[in-house]
């Protein structure tokens, strides 16, 4: 995974709440067996509307998505994270994220940042007033800055460290194989198994 330390880009204001993962990428796009090429499906239904924010020239190069509350609800499809990343987003900001989406994003290196709704609305206003506003997302100092504004955000130390080092979660867990072995040694035999088939 690529290291995430600091990102500077422009913003895309998505003034909608409850953006579910079916909107981020509809089910018909989930049939692929690869991790790439999902950018075509990103917000597929909404992109039919010429006025939709991603269709506006001013926001075409945006890499920081600033969305309404409860972003990423619904299906656990990680394709939603891939679609955002494949399209070019590096950061999503919202006042609330659905748990599974947030977990998926932080595993895959898409930084999801929780700010207060008032701070989100201020960002929307600033981006809409000047779409070229540079936004700096600094994971090291845990701040989002643009124009003269600097807002701190909270992220747990472990996740921050893992993202800044670009570490593979599976590799980290495999270092604990001894603990897994010993746990399995003590597991009750009353638990079911799928094999042999009964």
């Amino acid at each position, binding site marked *: 995974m690529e290291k995430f330390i600091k990102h500077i880009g422009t913003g895309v204001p998505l003034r*909608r*709440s*409850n953006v*579910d993962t*079916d*909107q981020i990428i*509809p*089910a*018909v796009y*989930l*049939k*692929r*067996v*690869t*991790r790439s090429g999902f950018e075509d499906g990103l917000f597929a*239904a909404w992109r039919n509307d010429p006025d939709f924010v991603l269709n506006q020239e001013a926001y075409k190069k945006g890499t920081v998505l600033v969305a*309404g*509350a*409860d972003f990423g*609800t*619904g*299906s*656990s*499809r*990680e*394709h939603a*994270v891939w679609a955002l990343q494949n399209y070019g987003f590096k950061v999503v900001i919202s006042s*609330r*994220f*659905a*748990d*599974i989406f947030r*977990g*998926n994003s932080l*595993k*895959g290196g898409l930084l999801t940042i929780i700010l207060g*709704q008032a701070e989100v609305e201020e960002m929307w206003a600033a981006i809409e007033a000047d779409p070229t506003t540079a936004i700096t997302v600094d994971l090291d100092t845990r701040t989002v800055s643009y124009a003269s504004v600097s807002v701190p955000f909270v992220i*747990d*130390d*472990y996740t921050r460290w893992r993202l800044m080092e670009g570490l593979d*979660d*599976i590799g980290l*867990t*495999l270092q*604990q*194989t001894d*603990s*897994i072995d010993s*746990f*399995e040694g003590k*597991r*009750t035999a*009353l*638990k*079911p*198994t*799928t*094999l042999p*088939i*009964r």
Partner: protein
Amino acid sequence: MGKTLAEKIWAEHIVRRVDGEPDLIYVDLHLIHEVTSPQAFDGLRLAGRTVRRPDLTIATEDHNVPTLNIDRPIADPVSKLQVDTLRANCKEFGLRIHSLGDKDQGVVHVVGPQLGITQPGMTIVCGDSHTSTHGAFGALAFGIGTSEVEHVLATQSLPLQRPKTMAINVEGSLKPGVTSKDIILAIIAKIGTGGGQGYVIEYRGSAIRALSMESRMTVCNMSIEAGARAGLIAHDQTTFDYIKGKPHAPEDFDAAVSYWTTLFTDADAQFDVEVDMNADDLEPFVTWGTNPGQGLPLNSVVPNPADIEDSEKRTAAERALVYMGLEAGTPLKKIAIDTVFLGSCTNGRIEDLRAAADILKGKKIASTLRMLVVPGSARVRLEAEAEGLDKVFLDAGAEWRNAGCSMCLGMNPDQLAVGERSASTSNRNFEGRQGKGGRTHLVSPLVAAATALRGTLSSPADL
């Protein structure tokens, strides 16, 4: 201080705990399907890793598969490739798979319980958000993303932040015609789609204890629609009776029951949040909008967004009414339906089919709509056919299909057309969920059947 059931299950599965890091949690059962697994297997191959515990892993084909002509090759080449990929991956890594044509093929959350492989006290994961269904057995079960699927395949464990706990107490008894689907829709309307974020919900109270296992699964299934990754119900005699006799029920059943009964929420346990609901005055519930929190009793009218104080909710309601093609003030029962969908991991089990068939028996569905009946698994289909339910549905004018997720998410050919309106026993009324431009009203199987007969959203009492 005492512990909750969820906290006890969590504690039993800690492989490793270190301050400042997520707990490493052992996974007792990993369910997989064709849509969220191919990239995970690819990841294993790229890193030269293998599946740690094939004997705790099981696969089936559900999201993408057709429900017609299942004896022929899958017509859509992209769907076919995905299903073929799952089959090849299972073969390569030595995993059990139930493919189209097998009696245990079906929606992954119907398959686990019917095999008796979903049991109390377990940790269960699947690359599907409705994994919360298995919580009905007193298990800690939640959906995961594809990176986590790969993680579980490789290590049989997951690093996880400990969730907070929420109790939802539902006391009283349901009126006839009101079901567990109405309970959960009312809960989501009350706490909102984000109300459960960060929590494991334990559903408690006399109304919950009175539910059958399959009705309990309906409640737990939609925990994620309230934002909670997992929801569970304490296991009891109802649970044990359901598991007993299933293919993978414990051989020493008494020993298993003794173990299971060590796991319960202590009387002095503290939940981080408690929510109270009364079952006595619940009515059949239906959604009018485009998220599952936008629901009302069926006797209501379409709400007027201007009456909603919260500006964010007001804007969402305005958008929803435009998308749904509804006018504020219209009685919900006046809304005409084009398609009734009976099925899914929420309401595609035998009890759901029986309840709907009971209403449809000897009658004809309205000429203005079509009705799709999609059993949750091939085993449910066979059971229904043995009871003659297929005849009831066919005689009423409904379509009797093969098992799969089908129109719940419209990934296979079963989809709504643009502007088409459904009454659906599934779990999500998102824009385009059942097909691009389709409009979904979430309902119980009883409301689905009554609606099929009358052509407009209806409860059995309207018949």
